[in-house]
């Protein structure tokens, strides 16, 4: 079923109330203007832990809610409305998925309960270059006895500047491998990246970083499965955030169209603008369905799950960028001032579209996965 049940609707409503009161868009603006050192609200992250949201994907045996990716999209869609910067994606979705899929009980015991309580932030370091290309990790692991040495670089690591531990992909003997590396390990250099959307990530450098065997999530053979699962979960959750963003920016535009007068009439009475707004609505609804379907497909292990993930990320990126760009245009001169929030939606839409592969990347991937 691609609609919400009563429980899911309740989660959504509670979250909306929490976020609009605790971290409305002005919260992001304040963090930006203050050049906040962590760029998130630690208080909100603690609340996420207390209310269970931080552990939505953590299995119950490790103190989480053990819910589905479908449920995780509800959370992401809500913080998309408020542009709340939150470690939910990096920690509760990507890192949690990596740990759960690895089946590594040692690391799961160590990290998952802390994640569920909202006590730690973890990041996943996937990309090495400016364009998403997860098969080229840009980092190598070399084994020598029980020691593993890492060398390489990572960039655009979401929350990498505040994560205590970073899950890093790299090649070990030519096979994809994931390791958990504490950020303060000698040889790790972290450069914070303030992105245009005032969300944060980091560029990491690994120079002869010494790890022990226990820090590897799995045998090299399994690294690719872990990476695939992390990417699928991450892409769906970013897509859900984009849907929330698109929905919000369209609502604000509709409100403006009703209120703003020109030539003696509300500008929302002009048919050309009406049709364009209605088209945005139609695009968002279609993208929303694709995101929900992709989440279900991954949850159920459907055959075309990977394909639907790319469809979802592509359509959500297009819908959010389209709605944000139209929002700027329909707000006219006001839309391009920093006084209004509209520009913040546009910036976040662009960055989140790029994150884990932009709409064009995923459209091309649809061709590749289909086999043409």
């Amino acid at each position, binding site marked *: 079923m691609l609609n919400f049940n009563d429980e899911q609707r309740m989660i959504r409503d509670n979250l909306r109330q929490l976020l609009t009161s605790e971290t409305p868009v002005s919260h992001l603006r304040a963090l930006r203007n203050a050049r906040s050192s962590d760029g998130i609200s630690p208080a909100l992250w603690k609340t996420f832990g207390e209310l269970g949201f931080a552990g939505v994907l953590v299995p119950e045996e490790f103190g989480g809610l053990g819910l589905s990716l479908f449920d995780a999209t509800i959370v992401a869609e809500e913080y998309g409305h408020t542009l709340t910067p939150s470690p939910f994606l990096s920690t509760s979705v990507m890192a949690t998925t990596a740990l759960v899929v690895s089946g590594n009980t040692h690391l799961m015991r160590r990290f998952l309960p802390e994640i569920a309580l909202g006590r730690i932030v973890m990041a996943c370091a996937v990309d090495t270059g400016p364009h998403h290309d997860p098969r080229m990790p840009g980092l190598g692991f070399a084994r020598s006895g029980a020691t593993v040495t890492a060398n390489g670089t990572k960039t655009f690591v979401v929350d990498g500047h505040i994560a205590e531990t970073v899950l890093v992909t790299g090649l070990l003997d030519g096979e994809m491998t994931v390791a958990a590396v504490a950020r303060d390990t000698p040889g790790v250099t972290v450069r914070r990246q303030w992105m245009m959307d005032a969300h944060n990530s980091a560029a990491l450098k690994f120079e002869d970083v010494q790890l022990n065997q226990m820090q590897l999530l799995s045998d090299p053979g399994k690294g690719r499965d872990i990476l695939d699962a992390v990417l699928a979960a991450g892409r769906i959750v970013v897509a859900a955030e984009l849907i929330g963003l698109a929905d919000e920016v369209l609502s604000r535009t509709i409100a403006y169209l009703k209120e703003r007068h020109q030539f003696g009439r509300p500008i929302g009475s002009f048919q050309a603008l009406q049709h364009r707004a209605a088209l945005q609505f139609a695009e968002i609804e*279609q993208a929303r369905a694709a995101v929900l*379907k992709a989440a279900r497909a991954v949850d159920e292990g459907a055959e075309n799950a990977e394909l639907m993930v790319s469809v979802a990320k592509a359509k959500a990126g297009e819908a959010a960028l389209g709605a944000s760009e139209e929002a700027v245009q329909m707000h006219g001169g006001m839309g391009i001032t920093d006084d209004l929030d509209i520009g913040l939606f546009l910036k976040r839409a662009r960055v989140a579209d790029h994150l884990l592969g932009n709409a064009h990347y995923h459209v091309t991937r649809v061709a590749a996965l289909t086999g043409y």
Partner: protein
Amino acid sequence: MKDDASVRDFRAETRAWLEQNCPPEMRLPIVEEERCWGGRKWTFHSDAQRLWLERMADRGWTAPTWPREYGGGGLSHAEAKILREEMDALNCRPPLERVSQALGLLGPTILAIGTDAQKARFLPPIARGETRWCQGYSEPNAGSDLASVRTRARDEGDHFVINGQKIWTSHAHLSDWMFALVRTGPDTPKHAGITFVLLDMDSPGVDVRPIELISGKSAFCETFLTDVKVPKENVLGEVNDGWNVSKILLSNERNSISTARNFMAERSIGLTALDRQREGPGHESDASLLDTSLRERIAAYEASAWAFSALSERAGDLAAAGESTAAHASVLKIHYARLNQLRTSLMLEIGGSDYFEWDAPVSDAARLWLRAKANSIEGGSTEIQLNILSKRVLGLPNL
């Protein structure tokens, strides 16, 4: 979401029955000309087609969610969805087209507001594919403005006498019955005074003339009505309340047109393009399309088509949960038209000049491309859908 036990049982039984009863010929990919529309004027393309329709109709599975007493299968939405999934899994063709005027539109409307006598009389032959219906809404110079109906129905006590002209009645020449809007009250206010009638096409005074379209086909007709008698028991809903009846039916129309077509259940046109490329010498083992422009555009279309199938599924789920909104009907209609136009245009491009021939062509791709131009006009144009969305859903003000 995992199937629970009873669901698992239903799924297993359904699959077993389908495997046993669906003839092998009815499990080949569907060809446009072989879709089954039924009706008294219908000619079956094969014995297998006839047999398949009979077997499915006997179980009520041509109209799975209709009550059993009216020829339906009495299934819940969840069961009907499973039936559909299992039919897709085994590549079973629909025994009777679900998008027809009868199964998709009129049937659900009669179920919702018809009298018991109307349900008993009209629904079972629809479910069995024995009567085919056409829609008499549009009139010359009325276009998208349904309220300007000018076909007159004169009250003669136990019956009406109807005079006027309908246009864009699809397949009127192949249909047994028409449902139509006629004016029974004064001209103004335009929305009042309209009545929804069920009209036997065999009645004296009904004259049907096909309209030639740009595709060279004649799916649409003009229908001239001259002193046509319609008994009053053939009024659906109340006299003068046809506007409201038509709104119920129209929302079914938009749902039905769109949910019925799952582009992605058909073969990927990207793979079709690759097949065609491989026909060229030296290209037998190409792994991907060399025309990267075409490849990217096909992929963009297919990504949208997959999203559309999710939208369609979600609309069905929302409707079953009673959360359906007018919004989804319009959204589906808009996307369907655009996607089918895109798909047929890409198919024509895949074919190239071979497919551009009009006489004795190697493919009907050109005609399908032209036919698809009507998708954004028929059944409430895209502009009308956008008006509906902006006014009723987004609440934007009138000028």
